[in-house]
Every structure is written in C-alpha cells, then in structure tokens.
C-alpha cells in the first residue's frame, strides 16, 4: 500500500521488543492435530481439545526467539479463510494426520494451493507427519512421497514425524 509502509515496524519499536519474533501459521485439514500441537508447544494440557471453529494464538519462547504461532481451524468451510492469515508469515507449519490415508490426496491439494499463495512466496514449510503414535500411521517418507514434496523447489521444506499427543518429535527446529 502507499500508506506509511514502515509504520508497523515503528509500532514494533514502541513495544520495545528487542528479541527476534517469528510469525508462524499452523495449517492442515481438520482433525490433523494442529491445536494439540499448538498446546504441546506451549506446554499446556492436551486432554480436552475440541474442533477449532475459529483460531488460536500462542506465543512460545524458543532459543531466545519469540514464536507467535497462529492455529487456524481446518474444517472445509474455514479453509477459505486461511489466506487471510498468511500475511507476514515467516514459517508455515503444515500438519498431517498420518493415519488418515484416505485424505492424503486432499491434504496434498490444500498444501499445494497454499504454496501458490503470493503471501507465502519463498516461505519455508515444515511438515509434521503427526499421529505417529497410531499403529495405522504412515511413515514420514511415505507422506512426503504422497505430497510430492520433491517438486517443491522454490523454498526450504522439511518433513518431521511426530506425535503431538505424546510430544515426541514436536520440538520446532526453526533456523
């Protein structure tokens, strides 16, 4: 926009924050485990989580950085709102239910649509192959193949197996 472009960096200055902040958005289909992951990242209770109708925000300190993590609901009717939350995103975390093989194609399509978004141009993607605690869970390599991750050449990406429920593998390794 033509309006004061640096204005909000000025406001940042007002806050007096010297530490580095990262804007992270958590996306993925409904029931992928985004809110569970978010809560786990914030070391909160994950026993009573209901489907997200809107969005949740948490700030997490990690390696001297402040991660502002936004978790947006994944139900089909909410997905159309995703693009409103992509501005200024530093990292996209995409969560997948590794046991939901029926919807692997659907989640792959949503991801590739996201990748094409102007606001996410060049933004690194971290994919969590979640629910590895389930017997039916596919390994991360299989998910990577199903998502055609090898075709994503315009950005950094990484896939990580995890269980948000148990907390295994959820340490966000953001460089």
């Amino acid at each position, binding site marked *: 926009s033509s*309006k*004061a472009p*640096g*204005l*909000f960096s*000025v*406001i*940042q*200055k*007002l*806050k007096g924050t010297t530490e580095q902040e990262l804007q992270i958005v958590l996306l993925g289909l409904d029931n992928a485990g985004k809110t569970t992951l978010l809560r786990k990242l914030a070391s909160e209770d994950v026993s009573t989580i209901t489907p*997200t*109708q*809107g*969005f*949740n*925000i948490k700030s997490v300190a990690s390696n001297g950085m402040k991660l502002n993590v936004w978790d947006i*609901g994944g139900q089909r009717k*909410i997905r159309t*709102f995703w693009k*409103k*939350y992509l501005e200024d995103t530093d990292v996209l975390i995409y969560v997948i239910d590794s046991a939901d093989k029926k919807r692997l194609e659907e989640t792959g399509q949503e991801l590739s649509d996201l990748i094409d978004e102007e606001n996410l141009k060049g933004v690194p993607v971290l994919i969590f192959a979640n629910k590895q605690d389930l017997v039916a869970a596919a390994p991360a390599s299989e998910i990577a193949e199903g998502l055609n991750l090898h075709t994503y050449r315009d950005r950094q990406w990484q896939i990580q197996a995890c269980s948000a429920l148990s907390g295994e593998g959820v340490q966000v390794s953001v460089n």
Partner: protein
Amino acid sequence: MAEDSEWIVESIAGYLGSPDWVMPVSEFIEHKCSVFDDEEENKLSYTEIHQQYKEMVETLLDNYMKEVGISEEQFLQACSSPLVRSKTLQNMIQPVMAADDFDIFKSLMIQKNIELQLQALRVIQEQNGSLPDCLTDGLDMMSELEQQELRILKEVLKRSKEEYDQELAKKNCYGEEAGSASNSSKDRMRPASVCQQEVNLKKQLDKEMQPIQKINSSLKPVDKGPAVCTSKTKETEKSNPSNDTVPSGRSKCSNNKVLAPVRVPVKGSEPFPEPKEKSSLEAAEAWLEEARKEAGISRPLTDLTASQMEQLQQRAEYLKQQRDRLLAMKKDQKPKETTESLPLTETKQEMSEEERKKIEKRKHLAEKLKQEVIKK
C-alpha cells in the same frame, strides 16, 4: 536532537489525547466490540474487524504525521526517547499498539463490550427507576447472589479480623516480652508510630465492617440457590445503601462520565493494582472460594428450567436493544464533548482508591453478567 524528539513526543501525546484520534477510535471500538467475548478460541470475525481497525489507525497516524510534518524517522526517534516510558503515554499508546498486536486489540474489545453491557443495565435503571419485568428476574437473581456473597464476605472479614486481632495480640505480647528482655532481641518494641498505625488500621477495618453489618441486618434471610422472585428487588435496593450497581448520588454526572470515551485498561498491563493490594485481594478470593465450598453453594445458574432460559434470552435481547440505544445516544453527545478540552488521561491516572474499588466491583459484576447473558 534530544529536544527535537521531545516536542515530537509531546505532539504525539497531544494528538493521541485529541478528539481527532480519540473519537474515531473509541467509536470504532464501541461499535464493533459486541462479538468479542472472553473465550480462548478466537472467532474468525475478529480478524476482519482487526483488519479494519488496523487500516483506520494507519490512516489516522499517516494523516497526523503528514499534517504535523513528522517523518517516520523522527517518529521512530521520538518513540525510543525515555519520555515514552511514562505511564500516561504508555496508556495512550495502547490503542495504537492494538493495531499491530491482536492480543491487545482483543482485550480492548472485550473490556469495552463488558463495559457497555453494564452501562446499558445502568441506563435502563436510571430511566425506569427500576428494571422492566424481563430484567428483574435476573437482577433479583443477582441480588440474591450478591447477598450470598455478602454473607460470605462478612464471614471472611470476620475471620480475617479475628486473625488480625490475634496477630496483633501476639505482636504486642511479643513486643512487651522483647522490651523487658532488653538487649537480647533484635525485634524490640516497635516505635509508637507503628503501634498507632496498627490501631488506625484496626479502626479502619472496623469501619469497613460497619456497612456490611448494616447491610446484613437490613437483609432478610435468603434461601440458597437461584430462587426467582420479583417483589423483593425494590425494597432491598432502597434499604441497601451500598448496592452500587447504581451510584444514585451521582447519577447525573455519572451519565457524562460514563459517556466519555473511556481509556480501557488492558488486562495484564494494567497500571493500578498495587502488588500488596493484589495479594490481599487474592487471599480474599481464596477465602471466598473456600467459604463458598464450605457453605455448599453450588455454582449459580447451572440448572435453569426451560422457561428461565427463555427469560434469560429475553433479557439478553432487551439488553442488546438498550445497548444499541446507548451507542446512538453517545454519538449524539460526542460533538458537545469536543468543545471542552479533555483532560481524560489525567483524571484516569489519578484514580482514587474508591474508584478503583468500584471498578473492581464492576468487573466482578461484569463476570456475573457474562455468565448470565453470554453463556446460555
């Protein structure tokens, strides 16, 4: 350079206190706050509203900077000046920060929403002398609850007074001992002034107890639970001097005061509660909680009949209507306000102890209200 940023800071502060800024911002907040509630999960609609707010703030600040001839560079320099660290300015800056910080924005909106609900209730009462039928049940229920709370509070105060007396006696005793045991103890008899302070404190405590005792004696015994009756409201209100949902003495001026754009304290960053006060408050809350358990009072409003639910619904609707009317009224009043200069932040800063308590009480009420109105 330093003087340079000084006038800029002053200019910014002046602008953030002027109607040019205050009016559009408070109007925006008042009109858009009704969907904001205090749930952890955010509604999608919040984002749209925040975006609109952001654009408005951006435009306002941009126009201001152009008008005054401040570059962003200067703005930035001024903002890193130590002058900005003052509390007054920090408070004024909150609505600016809200443009960039969703959390601040959300709490501004929630606070305003609750404030408006309470104001609507108050206006209804001022206009009608009493609340219309669809609202009396709730008020009655509320006053019932308040009576319960008062009883509990009385008990808490009594016990804390006893404890205090014991403590005092112990200290006195110890003081005398120490005094007679001469040099051995570090903790000698304390100077007279301290003792005097204690006496004063005690007197104050006694004084604080008085109105509660009065209230209590004026109350009829109440049965537990959210009993619904309509006849009691008026008389309890008349005979209850400290029922300050409607501060009757200042109803006229309170109207004005209420309608002024209120700087909304943001949760967490609120400057006023002194740490000491807070801890005693927390203690009191713990007491209350315990007393409540002891008294076996279950959470109110958990089991309402269908008709009661319907009445609640009715009340919520009525409240909303009044709220909208209130907003319209405010709009009419605003142009008048601009003629007076607004020493708003100043008065807000020097809030008296009494006002703080009032606000605390209001917040408490707001909580209850929310339970009744928002949660169905």
